[in-house]
């Protein structure tokens, strides 16, 4: 993979190579980026808008990518930065009193019922977290290591650990509170 990357991200990648790499990047990371976008938005249309913002930002940055970091770090760094800008432009999604709506198009009522309810509750709780905690927890849930999260956010690994601990405490409390309310 690294040798292939070196060939594609060499001095002057062709347009076709960039397009192919862009398509491959989105195919490989699309679901993760969509989940990340969901954690910053209230509705499906906002989520899709943010996803497009992220994807277009990756498209613009791709020709200049010279493997200073891994592809995953590159993609998630752009995603987090775009998400922050999106929040600034649209306002924060973290209104604890608002009903968070994340409907998926094309799902039948039966399919919606059988959908992972716990996953929805988890997303809703993450949407309430302050942004600095939301960033670390979503990246950790996507399987990034401390070093990778540090590279994405531009903070030290010890800082990642501190934020992650606080994020987990808050998230646990939110999930326990929502479980109690459902009884």
């Amino acid at each position, binding site marked *: 993979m690294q040798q292939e990357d070196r060939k594609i991200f060499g001095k002057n990648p062709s347009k076709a190579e960039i*397009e192919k790499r*862009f*398509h491959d990047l*989105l*195919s490989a990371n*699309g*679901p993760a980026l*969509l*989940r990340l976008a*969901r954690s910053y938005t209230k509705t499906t249309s906002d989520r*899709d808008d943010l*996803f*497009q913002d992220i*994807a*277009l930002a990756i*498209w613009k940055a791709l020709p200049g990518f010279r493997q*200073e*970091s891994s592809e995953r770090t590159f993609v998630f*760094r752009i995603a*987090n*930065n775009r998400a*922050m*800008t999106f*929040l*600034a*432009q649209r*306002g*924060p999604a973290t209104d604890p009193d608002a009903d968070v709506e994340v409907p*998926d*198009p*094309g*799902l039948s009522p039966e399919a919606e019922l059988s*959908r*992972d309810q*716990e*996953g*929805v509750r*988890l*997303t809703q709780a993450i949407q309430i977290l*302050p*942004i*600095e905690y939301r*960033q670390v927890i*979503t990246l*950790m*849930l*996507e*399987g990034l290591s401390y070093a990778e999260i540090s590279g*994405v*956010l*531009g*903070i030290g690994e*010890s*800082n990642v650990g*501190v*934020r992650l*601990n606080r994020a*987990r405490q808050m*998230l*646990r409390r939110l999930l326990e509170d929502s479980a109690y309310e459902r009884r």
Partner: protein
Amino acid sequence: MSDDEMEMWRKQWQGQPSVVVDLIRRVERETVEMRMVWFPFFAPAAVGAVATVLVALHPSLWGFLFILGLWLFGAFTLVFVKWNFKGAWTPQAETTAAYLELSILRCRRKLRDDRVGRVIAVLLPAFVLVGVLGGVYDLLKDAGALKTAGDYWIVAGTFLWTSLLIIGIVVFILFNQRRIRTKTQAELEYLLTLQQQLLREEGENMFG
């Protein structure tokens, strides 16, 4: 706190349904549209070019001054845009803090762009209106079309309606700009608050 908990959350998080294929196709279509970003600049340049050709065909001092004014406005706008957005294209470093600073800088430059834009939005149409109406008046007079008082009243009436229409368009543009300005100011405030929040968090973590 255990890794089992994180593993459980990870499965819940990653197990959520996602529909991505259509979105990817939409994005790939938009990258083609992005290449047409320079089209909005072609229209004013084309108008300037056509006006230049017309004045060249029917030279007059008035026409020459009008064309000169048009191209000066155009040159000023280009130079201003280039200067205003200098240093606002890429972040200083590949860090969240640097991207945040870049977003804040872009907001500030957008607000500056708006302030200058408002002045141009008034001056340029006024200049064009005076130039075009003056030029049309000269043409009509040279062609001998303005013979009676009635002819002059018709021309005056047409000029008045044209002016009112242009003023209406300018007012609409300024009103729309005000909406964008308010949104940008809110965005800037949010970004500054976020920056302070992140800096405070960094400070707390550094000093325990």
